[in-house]
Structure formats: C-alpha cells, structure tokens
C-alpha cells in the first residue's frame, strides 16, 4: 500500500494515482525491488579496462611531472 512520505506536505490518494498512472514502475524513487545482476567481464574487456586504468595513472604522474618542471 502506498504510504505517506515523511515530507512536509502529505501525499494524497490522487497523488498516488497520478504517480502510478504516469510514471513507469522503475522510475519510482524508492523502488528497490528490481535487481540488475552483476556483469562478468570477459578477458578482452578486463584487458582493455586495466590497460586504460594503468594509462590514466601513468598520465596523471606525467601531469604532476609537467606541473613540477613548469614550476621550476
């Protein structure tokens, strides 16, 4: 049963009907029923993600180095 929320103004029955008739079920803010399963990464996907992660960490070090040589 839809219940009153803890906000300042009360939610009326017509509000509930409006919500249920105009929003898709998974648009409801507190609907936690639907579960999206975890995706298992394949070998190539893991390789690409890890490669780009290492690339990013390395490039951040390059940026820090660039800042250091600019300031000296």
């Amino acid at each position, binding site marked *: 049963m839809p219940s009153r929320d803890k906000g300042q103004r009360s939610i009326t029955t017509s509000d509930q009907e409006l919500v249920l008739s105009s929003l898709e079920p998974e648009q409801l803010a507190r609907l936690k029923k*639907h579960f*999206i399963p975890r995706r298992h990464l394949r070998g190539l996907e893991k390789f690409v993600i890890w490669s780009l992660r290492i690339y990013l960490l390395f490039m951040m070090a390059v940026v820090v180095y660039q800042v250091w040589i600019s300031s000296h």
Partner: protein
Amino acid sequence: MGAGPLSRVTPQAVTQDVVITHEDVDRAHDRVRVSAARGQRGVFSGFRLLWLLVGPGILVMLGENDGPSMLSYAATGARFGIGFFIPFVVLTFCMAVVVQEMTMRLGSATHRGHAELIFVRFGPFWGWFSMIDLGIGNFLTLITEFIAIRAGLGFFGVPPWAAVASALVFLCLAVITHRYWTWERTLLAIAVFNLVFVPVALLTHPSWHSVHRALITWRPLPGGLSKDTLIILLADIGATVTPWMLFFQQSATVDKGLTRKDIHVGRIDTVVGAALAATAAVATILATAPLFAHHMTAENFQAAEFAQALQPLIGRFGAALFALGIVEAGMVASVTISISSAYAFGEVAHRPHSLNLPMAEGRAFYSVLFLCAVTAGAIVLIPGLPLVNVVLLVNVVAVLAMPPALVFLFMLANDRDVMGDLVSPKWANILATSVVVFLTLAGVLFGISVIAPHIFGFLGGR
C-alpha cells in the same frame, strides 16, 4: 519501441511495497504534461513536446562551455588564430554529441544514473575507481569555475571574496525551489547567455571569408606541433568532452523522467546543445583572434586580462560583455558540476538524489552539493596559489580521464541485459571507438612531449 528488460516490475508490486515520495509526485506532474502534448497533433504540439523535453542536453553542453573552457578558447584564438582551430572545435563538439547521446539513451532506458549503473553492473571495485576519477576531476574543475568567476568579476572591480560569495548565493538560488523543472528552466535561461560571445565576436568585425575558408580547408597548425600547442589542443578537447558530462546528463535525464519514447527528442536536445555551445566556442576564438593578428602575447592571460586586451579593439562595452560571459560560464558550470557530484554521491550511497527533493528529504544530496562548492570557493581565496596553470591543466586532466570513463559507457550502451533493443547501433560503436582511440592517442602524444621531448621531435613535433 518495445520495453526493455528493466520494465518487468508491475504496478501492483509497486503499490504493495513502495513509498510514493514528493519526488515521484513532482515528476509525475511533469510527465502528465508530456503525455498531453504527445497526445495532440499539429506543429504547435510538436514544439510544445520539444519544449517540455529539452533540457539536459542543452544544459550539459552549455555547462561544459565553462570558465576554463572559454579561457581555453580565448587563449586559442589569441595564440593561434582561427585557421586550424575553428574546424577542430567543431569536430570536438561532434565527438561530444556521439558520447552524450549514449548517456541520454542509457538514462532514458534504465532510469538509473551513470554511477549507479557502473556500481551494480561492474561491481564496487570499478565503481569506486570511476567515482574517484569523477570526484577529483569535478573538484578541480569546480575550483577553476570559481577562478573564472573571480577573474571575470575582477574586471568590474569586484573583490575576490565578493565574487566567490555571489557564486555561492547563485548556487543556493538555483536549487532553492526544490523542483527539477524550475531549476532546469531557470538555468537554461541563464546558460543561453553563453551566446554573449557572439556579439563580442561581431564587434571585432571578423573576416567571414577567412572563417569560411578555415571551415572548408582546415588549415595546418600555425608554427607546427609543439608541446605548448599540444596543451592547447588537449585543453580544447577537454573543453567539450569530460567525465562529469557523462554522469550529469544521465542523472539529469533520469531526474527529468525521460523514457524510451522520449529518446528521439533527447537526441535533438543533445544536438541543439552542441550547436549552441559550438557557436559560443567559435565566437570566443573569433573574438580573441585579433590579439593573434596583432601579435600580442597572451600565454598567461586570465579573463580580466583578455577583456582588457580586447578593450582597445571592441570598446569598454564589448570588453565588459566578454568578462560577463566568463562569469556566466563559471556560474552555470559551478551549478551543473556540483549537482553532478551530488547525483553520483546519492546514487552510490543509496541516498535520495533529485532536484525535486524537499530539503528535509534530500539533506545528504544538498549537503554534498553545497560542500563541494563552498570548499572549491574557499580554495580560490587562498593567496598565492598558481591559479593560471590550474585552468589549462584541468582540461588536460579531463581528456586523460575520458578513455577509461568512455569504455564503461560504451559497454553499458551495448549491454543488451540493461538496454534491451536500445543497444548502440554499429555506426554509433564505430564513432564511439574512434573517439576513445583519438582521445587516448592525444593523451599519449602529450605524455611523450613531456617525458621524452626528443622522441616528440622525431615524430615531427617541436
């Protein structure tokens, strides 16, 4: 268009277990107007539907025309003119459309934010990596927004503390209605002021023949490829595609309540946003190009200095418009970036996250939003910080952080379990892969220019 795998929850299940919130009620009112417009026929109804559904795409694009971006474009025009960079900037906005369309489609199909989807689909390990990238990138960018606001208002003699305070007041006013629709319309009205760079460009009396020739022939880089040129190139790319845009547009799409039926309008929204933002970006390059023609050194200019340098050419009024444009860019982006951080926090921490939330229900959401902004504003007021370098480097960091973020977006947009029949078509995947490769190569070239300049010279750079 059929419903996706996420549409398996029945309304009956909803009524049994779920609390209806004010956020839902506000969103439902917005959707009723959309349904009414969709139910009518005629040109007027079509425009009304467009009017009701546009927002996230235009806001994200004009929001990304932020303080550091406009300063990057200004530096570009002043140092390199228009020949190479006008078509280059148009190309970067085309890349932005490819990327942002995927986020809009994801948000409309799943009704979940980007951070939430990464966490549930790839797990907390990769989720936290993405959040750390986003958090650091957003915070650094937010600092530069306050730098831009401070510098722009500095042109009018406003002291730094007052500039920062006014930006924080603007942020409070922007979200005070606790209503997504009002917030979006208000910010859209202010964001369109980004086009103030168009009259500034017109005041410089640009040569339209040269502009036309630049767009048609795409002339080579003046002076060839050097490390400094590469930083400007990366800064201009980072001025159009950054990680916060992915998170913001997807979350705003969800908050607005767009559905699968709205995707075609979402595409129009994104393209219109990109066109408006590209117009403002090109206008900024055109506005400062006379400084290049007059061989003025503009390497370390901030907003106020650009405006002052332009004053002899376009008068006090034109210079004031330029400075106001920088202030607007910083103000709008400070709102969108703070909200992007707050959305991501709410999605990951499972706290309510919507601009429809009353303060009592969204304390955590609004606290993160304001905390980010206040801290960034306070940092800008610390005396002696090297603020000029930060501005260009923030955009470079954004480009470097994009490939890992794009790979998750790419995988989610092609995930049939999440997207159903809305997975990316082959042509979109080819374009998206090209963007990832292009950004990665740009980053690698930057890395080589810094750590092995002799190899960079061997590759044709200086």
